[in-house]
């Protein structure tokens, strides 16, 4: 599947553009890790982790409540005085257990975070400008779409995002990814569509009156179909731009 020429091209482009790139990049040669699959995996692990802790605490509490219910009305509690060693032990041992779990979760969480931020070099890069209340996408060849992001299956997609008014947040639930788009800043997110289909895009940062209607979709097309659409639309853009000869051509 790996196209050597394309890899070399991408690496050259990378070397040229390297310092300007805000995000980390990994060479295409590496296997692409799907952040959405990584998310599902870590979510399941963390759910098991917190469920086990919750059940242990709940069972102990329920047992104590049952075991030590008051029988005669004048009964007093008879908790023994904690020795200094026991008091310290009840601090140190649980603290280390909690910290061990914390650091384990932090390490796994950080690893997945890197997957979310390291964008594969072989990708489709689309600019996104959000505004009240639409998603405006611009493709490398100048094609513009609104509220519909068409992408080819099997290729990572990078969105570079900004906003022209309030803060919005481009959320694609099916790809488990969201990020704010803000005026005055450029943020990014990437996702890895693998099968043709449509996916909801929706705004998840309160942006104004019509916030809940700021929705669109990601349409994943078979690569050939996408290419045909992309070139046909690109040709239209070129034709429209042709009379204005003074305009510089957008580099592909």
């Amino acid at each position, binding site marked *: 599947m790996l196209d050597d020429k394309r890899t070399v091209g991408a690496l050259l482009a990378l070397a040229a553009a390297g310092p300007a790139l805000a995000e980390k990049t990994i060479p295409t040669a590496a296997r692409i890790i799907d952040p959405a699959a990584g998310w599902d995996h870590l979510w399941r692990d963390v759910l098991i982790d917190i469920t086990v802790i919750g059940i242990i605490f709940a069972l102990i509490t329920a047992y*104590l409540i049952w075991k030590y219910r008051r029988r005669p009305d004048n009964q007093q509690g008879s908790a023994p005085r904690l020795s200094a060693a026991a008091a310290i032990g009840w601090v140190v041992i649980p603290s280390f257990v909690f910290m061990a779990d914390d650091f384990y979760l932090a390490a796994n969480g950080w690893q997945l975070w890197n997957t979310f931020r390291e964008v594969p070099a072989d990708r489709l890069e689309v600019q996104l400008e959000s505004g009240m209340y639409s998603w405006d996408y611009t493709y490398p060849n100048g094609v513009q779409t609104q509220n519909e992001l068409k992408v080819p299956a099997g290729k990572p997609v990078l969105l570079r995002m900004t906003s022209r008014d309030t803060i919005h947040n481009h959320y694609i639930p099916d790809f488990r990814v969201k990020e704010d788009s803000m005026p005055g800043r450029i943020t990014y997110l990437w996702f890895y569509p693998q099968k043709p289909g449509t996916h909801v895009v929706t705004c998840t940062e309160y942006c104004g*009156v019509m916030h809940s209607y700021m929705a669109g979709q990601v349409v994943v097309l078979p690569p050939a179909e996408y290419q045909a659409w992309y070139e046909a639309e690109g040709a239209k853009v070129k034709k429209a731009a042709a009379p204005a000869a003074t305009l510089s051509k957008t580099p592909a």
Partner: protein
Amino acid sequence: MNLKEWIFTTDHKRVGILYLIGSIAAFGVAGIMALLMRAELSAIGPTITADPTTYNVWLYAHGAIMILGFQIPALTGFFANYCVPLMIGAKDVAFPRVNALSVWLFYVGVILALLTFFIPDPPDVMWTGYPPYSTITAGNTALYSLTVLILGFASIIGGVNFLTTVAFMRAPGLGWGKLNVFVWCILGAFVMQLIFVPVLGSAVTLISLDKYLGTHFFDPAMGGDVLTYQNLFWFYSHPAVYVIFLPFIGVVFEIIATFARNPVFNYKAAVYGGIGGIVLISGEVWIHHLYVSGMPDWLRIGQMVSTLLISVPVGLLVISLVGTLYKGAISFETPMLYALGVVFLFLIGGLTGIPLAITSLTVNLSETYYVVGHFHYVMAVAGTFAIFGGVYYWFPKMSGRMYNELWGKIGFWITFVGVNIVFWTMMDIGARIGLPRRYYDYAQFPQAADAQHLMTIGAVILGVGFVIALLNWIIGAAKGPKAGDNPWGSPSLEWTTVSPPPHGNWPSPPSVSEEWSPYAHGKR
């Protein structure tokens, strides 16, 4: 009863009861907002209002009033005022007139918040008030800023008052190691208020300056930055979660120790490790509210770890709470049911916060119903249950009368069932399909319709439970049977005076012996 005496009172108990009345009124209004929102969301498309702005104003009012008008004033206003001087054996607070000023300011703040419903362009900026929206909306951002400033100022002068009171007015023999856990919690909460409220005050002042006086603090076109506000806001508002958490867990400590007739398990660990640890870490975790706002990695990794490490002090507090049950003599009157309810709700809420501490999991969960469900469990509902349990617990002390035990329990169970229907469903729908919060309509998520409908039913159920509790208090205060001075048999100092306590609390100031502690049950 003379109204003028109440308005111009400097008695800490009356100031406390004024705080309680005001905050419960705020709770009622914000609760009605919640029911209106649930009615709107019960089906896809417009249901009870066709105007999204109306819904957004309800949502703003619900969040702002519940946090600033109900939970913080009920916990640091009512409970602190009523209980702290009694618990430390003081006649009153250090500065009674400043105390009266703080409750007046609180009422001004609540009235300002309620003006939301009477002015032509009410604020629709959510309780977070993020710019640029808050600086371009037609809604009245100034009202939001002013409400926050007034309530914040009330809280700051309350903080000065209580730190001074506890430092200098403890009864003879009552050392720092013998303070009720609740008093420590109030100290911790006010230390955080004094450090962090000014930051919130500056943040909300700057958005009003931007909007009305043409400054550009948050306007990128003129060299400002939109994220500055979010950093300032959450630098206060995450500690604010602990300003709510500490007093409510303190109330739960008092109730559980009393009804288990046991001393607090590992008191020093709870106070120095638990409360102290939370105050220390509280200011270093706010970035987890900005995980999808393009924060740099170096800020993320540190604050992800510090957020996860909150589990250590919180874990110590929970171990102390649960450990207090060990070899106890536990009975299950209404306050105890609420307290055990808090332990259960807080367990769910705390544990479901762990995924939200992890920066990569938050990429999917942030700003969804999962977050809303989580913070309602951990703070909103657990806190409200603690407030209701605490009011039931000190009800005989405040009124001299007893509430109806059967109706108390019925109210508890109805509410308990209701909150779990609403907020469990909420977390589930958020995690499974990613339904975003702050949505007036959700046509793009048709699969959420059934869950939304179920949550609306649950909201009505929990509302019924709260109304039963409120009626129980009103009827109990008016014509409940006489309660006696110490119905629960607690050795804590507030139960050693008559019910209700007179002005000055004790005929002569109490002093405590070497063996006494607020939790030394059975040793009079």
